[in-house]
């Protein structure tokens, strides 16, 4: 157990008072940055990069690590309280987190989100100590065909997720996929549906669509809700904690979602958004009461929160073991490593064991500190709900615009934001669900591109999609996720009939 020995050594590094201070500072800053719309972990790390140049490599890495998972903790605060996710990984937290707030259970939602993030982070760090190298070697077995199967699986799960009219759910998905085709097609260089607008050439950032549909949609709806007195101002605030019963519902989902998130995070390019959405779908399908999902089921919040924090740990694996950036954030961190004079790559563990194991040990400490910091912080944050809606909603609007600007520094995004805000509102009126659209926008381009990459590599043979055990397993999961809900419906109907006869 050489790695345990080295981990112990890492702890002696991470537990130095200065390093504990850095991880705390990084974590708190990250939490604040994560809460602002449009500013996710990648921007957070990039912004604080110059600050870390004057530190030593250990302190710099530990601080950046703190910013990274701090931003993951912070990202979901706005999702839960205002239905305005700060980044992709926090989208899934709106599905059940915001309904909980509407029911006056914001305290419990914030608490479980911090607890689940903490457990997810710690479990994933444990995995990292034990299996990082084999996981990295396994992750590179994912080729274009395997990624295609993975994206199809994610999409199939949401298509069945839509409530109400099935046809409308599929419509939303197709419209989302259409949005994802906008921009330069990477495989051929052909510009698709850009209408001569330069800013559209790199496609529409899915974060803009998310901010538009959730935040602007919420503001548009509020005009009516305020008039009809449907909005409320929360005056009494309880303690940020959860009941024993809530806890019982969440334990298993958290434990299941953490390894899932860890692994999805370790796949280069998949990331926290995919991890949290897949964890959510997974729990909904395994749940005994799937109809409560989307209406404030606490495990529907716990699962994606655990998964996205685990994914942020997993994303470090390709960076540390292979020198491949697994996500936008780790790409920025890799740049920082190089500036600090380290060469990310397979030799890093051997050449710089003290720094790497120090970083891993600091992940444990960072998660503990973040959990401690976040619970009192949430107690203050929840008071946002005491701001009258007539003031709160214009402010949400102001935050949405500045968030959109921070993504690409372009005013064009204001107009895109408005277009999709209106689209989201109309979809709400026409009772078309928006979550299939969101997921389709996130995975759409990758799905099409992976398909065509595989198709080129195989010289046009479809066999490539079933060539590896990974593809076959993912394909089987897709079939199950489509058939399982239908099968369950048939089963319930049959049981009802039998009971009627009895």
């Amino acid at each position, binding site marked *: 157990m050489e790695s345990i020995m080295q981990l112990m050594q890492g702890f002696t590094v991470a537990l130095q008072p200065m390093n504990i201070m850095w991880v705390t500072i990084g974590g708190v800053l990250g939490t604040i940055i994560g809460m602002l719309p449009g500013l996710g972990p990648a921007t957070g790390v990039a912004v604080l990069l110059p600050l870390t140049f004057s530190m030593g490599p250990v302190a710099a890495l530990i601080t950046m690590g703190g910013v990274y998972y701090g931003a993951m903790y912070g990202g979901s605060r706005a999702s839960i309280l205002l239905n305005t996710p700060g980044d992709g990984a926090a989208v899934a937290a709106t599905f059940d987190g915001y309904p909980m707030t509407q029911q006056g259970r914001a305290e419990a939602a914030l608490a479980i989100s911090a607890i689940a993030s903490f457990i997810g982070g710690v479990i994933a760090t444990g995995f990292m100590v034990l299996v990082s190298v084999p996981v990295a070697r396994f992750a590179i077995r994912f080729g274009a065909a395997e990624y295609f199967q993975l994206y199809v699986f994610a999409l199939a799960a949401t298509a069945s997720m839509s409530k109400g009219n099935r046809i*409308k759910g599929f419509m939303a998905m197709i419209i989302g996929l259409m949005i994802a085709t906008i921009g330069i097609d990477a495989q051929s260089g*052909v510009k698709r549906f850009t209408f001569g607008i330069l800013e559209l050439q790199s496609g529409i950032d899915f974060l803009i669509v998310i901010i538009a549909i959730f935040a602007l949609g919420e503001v548009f709806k509020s005009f009516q809700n305020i008039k009809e007195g449907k909005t409320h101002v929360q005056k009494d605030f309880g303690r940020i904690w959860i009941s024993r019963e809530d806890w019982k519902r969440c334990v298993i989902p958290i434990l299941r979602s953490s390894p899932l998130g860890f692994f999805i995070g370790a796949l280069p390019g998949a990331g926290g958004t995919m991890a949290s959405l897949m964890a959510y779908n997974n729990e909904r399908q395994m749940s005994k009461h799937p109809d409560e999902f989307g209406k404030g089921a606490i495990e529907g919040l716990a699962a994606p929160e655990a998964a996205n924090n685990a994914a942020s740990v997993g994303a470090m694996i390709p960076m540390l073991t292979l020198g491949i950036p697994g996500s936008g954030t780790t790409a920025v961190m890799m740049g920082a490593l190089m500036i600090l004079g380290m060469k990310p790559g397979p030799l890093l563990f051997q050449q710089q064991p003290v720094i790497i194991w120090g970083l891993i040990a600091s992940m444990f400490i960072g998660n503990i500190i973040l959990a401690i910091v976040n619970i009192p912080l949430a107690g203050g944050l929840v008071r946002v709900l005491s701001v009258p809606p007539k003031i709160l909603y*214009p402010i949400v609007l102001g935050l949405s615009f500045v968030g959109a600007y921070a993504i690409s520094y372009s005013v064009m995004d*204001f107009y895109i934001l408005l277009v999709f805000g209106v689209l989201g509102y109309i979809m709400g009126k026409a*009772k078309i669900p928006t979550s299939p659209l969101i997921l389709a926008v996130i995975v759409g381009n990758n799905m099409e591109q992976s398909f065509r990459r595989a198709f080129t590599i195989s010289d046009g043979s479809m066999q490539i999609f079933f060539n590896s055990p990974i593809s076959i397993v993912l394909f089987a999961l897709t079939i199950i996720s489509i058939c399982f809900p239908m099968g369950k419906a048939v089963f319930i109907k049959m049981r009802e009939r039998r009971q009627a006869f009895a």
Partner: protein
Amino acid sequence: MGNRSFAASDAQKTSLITAVVCMLLGLAFVIMTAALPQAAVGMPNAPKIFPFALGATLILLGAGLLVQQLAAIRGSTEEVVNEHKPMFDIHSRQIALTVVNGVAYGLLFGRLGYVLSTCVFLGFELLLFNGKRRWKMIILVSVIFSLTIYILFNKLLGVYLPMMPVIGF
């Protein structure tokens, strides 16, 4: 109720409109796809296949919804009670004004800098929600908000926001 086929509820009417709009959208997408240039490398039609399939599927889904809703209308025997809510009510007006305000914000943003343009934008939006009588609160909130965000983003985090011209703040 002489002609039962017209006895559609508001929800059903909305669905019918949705179906038709989606079919038109799908058709427009197919036409735009056909107009795309061919790829010079790889298969010439490779960039068109996926969008074409999407357009076609949306048309089919629209048709499916149309059939489903018409069947439901024909099959229903219940008397339909319609609330006769106007399609474009007071809220649509407020939403439209918010959109216009957003476009104006975009036009002013680069010219006036973040702080001033945000004061104007947020001020108008607060006016829309609160009415003229609370002008003191409106000015206070919009000034504090724009200054806080500007200092937080531009000065503390180093995320660039346009500065005011001349003054250079």
